[in-house]
C-alpha cells in the first residue's frame, strides 16, 4: 500500500510536466499575445515591439518554457504580468473559494443524488422513479449559466431571500451566515447537473445489487427492509458510485468557471477567465497547474477509497 502510494505520488511529476507543456504551448501558440491585448486597437508596431521585449516574449518558445518551468520547480510560479502579484499566492487564495464552492456542490449532489437514486431503485417504475428520470433529463440538459440566472432572478430579485452575487456582503458582512447565504445559489447551480448523474448511476447500481442472490438470502433471513437496502444494497453499490462522484469532483472543479463568473464568486475560475482574456501567461499557467494537481489528487483519493470500501481490492 505504501509503495503504491509512493509510486502514484511519483507519477504526479510526469503528469504535471505534461500538463505544463500543453498549457504553455496552447497559450503561446494561440493568436494574440499579452502585448497585443494590452495595447488593443491603439497599438503601433513600435509600442508592440517595446512591450514584447519588456515581457520577454521575444525569446524562442523553448527558452521561455525552460525559464518558466525552472522557476516552477523551485516553487516560484512567477508574477502576473498585469496584476503585479505573485501567482502562487494569488492562485492559492482564490483556490480556497473554489474549493469551498466545489466541495459544497459535491456534498449536495452526492447526498441528494444518492438519496434519489436509492429511492428510485427501491420502487422501480413508480411515480417517483419516473419523476426522477424526467428531472434527470432536465438537469443534464440545462446549461448551468442559464439555471444560475433563473435562480438569481427568482431568489434574489423577485423574492429577495438571497444575495445575487459575491462571497460576502461588500460591508458589514464577513460572518458564517453571510458566507452561507452567498454560497446557496452558486452551490445549487453547480450541483444541479451532477445530482442527476449521481442519481441515475446510483439507481442502476442499486437495481443491480438488489437483484443479487445474497440480497434475496438476506431478505429470506428476515433482515429489515431498511438494512437490506442500506447495508447489503447501497454498501455493495458504493464502488461505482464513488467512481462517478470522483469524476464529478473533477467536473465540478472545471464547471466552477461558469458558475463563478455568473455569481461573481472570487474563485480560481473567474481569475482564469480574466487571465485568459488578458493572455496573462504566468497567471493562467499557474491556475491550470493548481487545478490539474488537485484533480490528480482527487483521483488518487478515489482509488484509495476503493480498497477501503471493497476489502477484495488490494494495491501492491
Amino acid at each position, binding site marked *: 500500500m505504501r509503495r503504491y502510494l509512493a509510486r502514484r505520488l511519483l507519477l504526479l511529476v510526469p503528469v504535471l510536466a505534461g500538463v505544463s507543456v500543453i498549457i504553455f504551448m496552447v497559450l503561446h501558440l494561440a493568436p494574440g499575445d499579452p502585448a497585443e491585448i494590452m495595447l488593443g486597437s491603439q497599438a503601433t508596431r513600435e509600442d508592440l515591439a517595446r512591450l514584447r521585449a519588456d515581457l520577454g516574449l521575444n525569446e524562442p518558445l523553448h527558452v521561455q518554457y525552460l525559464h518558466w518551468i525552472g522557476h516552477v520547480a523551485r516553487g516560484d510560479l512567477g508574477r502576473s504580468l498585469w496584476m503585479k502579484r505573485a501567482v502562487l499566492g494569488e492562485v492559492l487564495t482564490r483556490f480556497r473559494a473554489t474549493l469551498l464552492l466545489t466541495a459544497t456542490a459535491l456534498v449536495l449532489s452526492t447526498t441528494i443524488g444518492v438519496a434519489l437514486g436509492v429511492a428510485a431503485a427501491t420502487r422501480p417504475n413508480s411515480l417517483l422513479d419516473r419523476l426522477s428520470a424526467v428531472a434527470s433529463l432536465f438537469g443534464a440538459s440545462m446549461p448551468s449559466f442559464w439555471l444560475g440566472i433563473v435562480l438569481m432572478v427568482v431568489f434574489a430579485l423577485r423574492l429577495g431571500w438571497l444575495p445575487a452575487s459575491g462571497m460576502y456582503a461588500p460591508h458589514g458582512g464577513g460572518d458564517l451566515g453571510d458566507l452561507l447565504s452567498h454560497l446557496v445559489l452558486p452551490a445549487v447551480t453547480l450541483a444541479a447537473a451532477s445530482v442527476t448523474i449521481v442519481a441515475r448511476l446510483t439507481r442502476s447500481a442499486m437495481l443491480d445489487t438488489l437483484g443479487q442472490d445474497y440480497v434475496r438470502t438476506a431478505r429470506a433471513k428476515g433482515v429489515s427492509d431498511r438494512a437490506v437496502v442500506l447495508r447489503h444494497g447501497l454498501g455493495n453499490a458504493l464502488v461505482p458510485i464513488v467512481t462517478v462522484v470522483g469524476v464529478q469532483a473533477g467536473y465540478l472543479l472545471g464547471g466552477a468557471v461558469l458558475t463563478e463568473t455568473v455569481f*461573481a464568486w472570487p474563485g480560481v475560475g473567474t481569475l482564469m*477567465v*480574466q487571465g485568459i482574456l488578458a493572455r496573462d501567461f504566468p497567471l493562467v499557467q499557474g491556475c491550470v497547474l493548481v487545478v490539474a494537481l488537485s484533480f490528480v489528487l482527487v483521483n488518487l483519493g478515489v482509488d484509495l477509497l476503493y480498497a477501503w470500501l471493497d476489502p477484495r481490492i488490494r494495491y501492491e
Partner: protein
Amino acid sequence: MRMSMAWLVLAVVLLASGALVAAQPAGTLVVGLVAEPVNLDPAQVTDLNSNRVGRRIVETLVTFPDESTQIVPGLAESWTISKDGLKYAFKLRKGITFHDGAPFDADAVKFSIERQIVTEHPFNKLGKYPFANYFFGNVKAVEVVDPLTVEFSLKEPRASFLAVLTAGAASIVSPTAVKKLGVDYPLSPVGTGPFKFASWDRGQRVVLEKNASYWKHPVKVDRVIYRPIVEDQARLTELLTGALDLIVGTPPDFVTQLENNPKITLLKQVGAHVWYLGINNQKKPFDDKRVRQALNYAVNKDAIVRDVLKGTGTLSRGPVLPNTWGADSALKPYPYDPERARKLLAEAGYPSGFSTTLWVPESGSGMQSPVAMSTVIQSNLKAIGVNVTLQTMEWGAYLAKLRTKEQDLFALSWMAGNEDPDMVMYPLLHSSQWTPNGPNRALYKNEKYDELLHQARLTTDQKKRAELYRDAQRILVDDAPWVFVDHEIQTAAHAKRVQGFKLHPSFDLRVETISLK
C-alpha cells in the same frame, strides 16, 4: 451524511429567514464594475475599469471639467507654450500634498513621466508602461525650473500635447511611494486625488477612503467600494435589490426596464468613442471611392442604433466626437439610401454587386454589440448585391489578424482622446500610420488630408486648428474610408440615494461629485 443534512437544514433556515441584504451604511457608496481592475497605476493599464478606479487616486496637470472635454487647469494652475510649440511650462499649485504626506512639486512631475520613458531611470524596470511611447514618445526632456515650475521640451511640435497630459498615463504619482513599494506600487498607489487607496480583496472588492484634505473641494462620500460583477443580470439584480448604488455599462436590453423603474435613475451621455466599419482602401473593389460611398449609403445606421443598441449610440459623421471644438457640425451623416448605393455600384462597374468578407471580433474594448451590429450590416449590404461572409474572432486573435493587411471589411472602434481631433484623425487615418506601423487599418491615404493634419499639429491656435480639421473632415466624408456608424452613448444607473452624479464624455467615472442622501 448527518453532517450534510445539518448543512441542508441550515441552508433552509437561512432561506426562510430572508431579508439578508444589508442596507448600506450612510457614507458608503458601492459601485458595480463590469470587470475587476487589473492594477491601479493608470500608467500601467489600458482598460477602462482600472482607470475608473485608479484615477480617483492620482491626478493630472491638466484635466477636463465635469461636463465637457475643454482642457482646464488641474494640478497645474497655469501654463505657457513657446511660440515654436516645442516648450510647455507649467506653474504648479502650491501646498498640495500626496496621500502619504510627501509634497507635490516639480520633482514629482519629472519623476512620474521619466519613470515611463527614460530606460535607465531606476524605476523604469519596476513597471510596464504600455502607452509610454504612444503618449510621451515625442517628449525630449522634463526639466525642473523651480519647485513649482516644470517644463516639457518636445522633439517636434504637436498641438495636442495638452490633450496628451489629460491621459491617465500622465498622472502624477508620489515618488516616495513608488520608491518604497517598487514593483508593488500599482497595488496600493499614492496620489493627490479625492480618494485614498484603502484595501483590495482580490475578486471581491477595492475600497477607497475619502481624502479629507482634498485640495479641490470637500469630498462628501466617506468610502467607495468597487465590486467586479461580470454577469449583466447579476449586476442589475444587485442594483435593483439595493446591494449596489451605481452601475455603469448597462446592457442595451436592460435600458427600457431601467428607464421605467421608479427606484432607479438612468443616465446617458455621448462618450469619446467611434464605432466604424473599416474598409481596406487599397484592395479591389474598395479602392474605388464610389464603392466605399455606396457602402455608406447602404448601411442603415438608424436601425442599428435603434434596434441593436436600443438607443445607446448616436449616428457618426466621422471620427471626431460631435459637439467638441474640432467637430464640424455642418457635416451630415450619410443617409440610408440603398437606391443611390446600387447606382454608385453600377457606375463603379459592379451592377450586380460582388462578394466580400467582414471580420468581426466577438467582443472587445468599446466594441458595443459587434456581432449583432455586423449582422445588420451584412443584411443591408446583401440588399445592394454585396454578399458578405461574416468571420468572427476572439479579440486578441482579431487584432493580430488585422496587421496582416488582408482584411476586406472589418468592425472596429476607438475610444481615446476623440475630444482632440489629432488624437483620433491622425493615428486612424494619416498615411504614416498604416498598419502594422500604426492603427490606420483601413490603409487610407490622401495627400491633402495628410498635409492638413500635419499643418494642424504645428498650429497652436485652437481656432486655426479647428478650421484645418474641419477641412480634413470634409475630405473624409467624401472619400468614405470607413462606414461611419456610431458614437457610443454610455449609460449608468443608480439608486435614488445617489445625488450629483454625472457621466463624463471621457468615460471617466467621477464618483467624487456624489453625495449620498
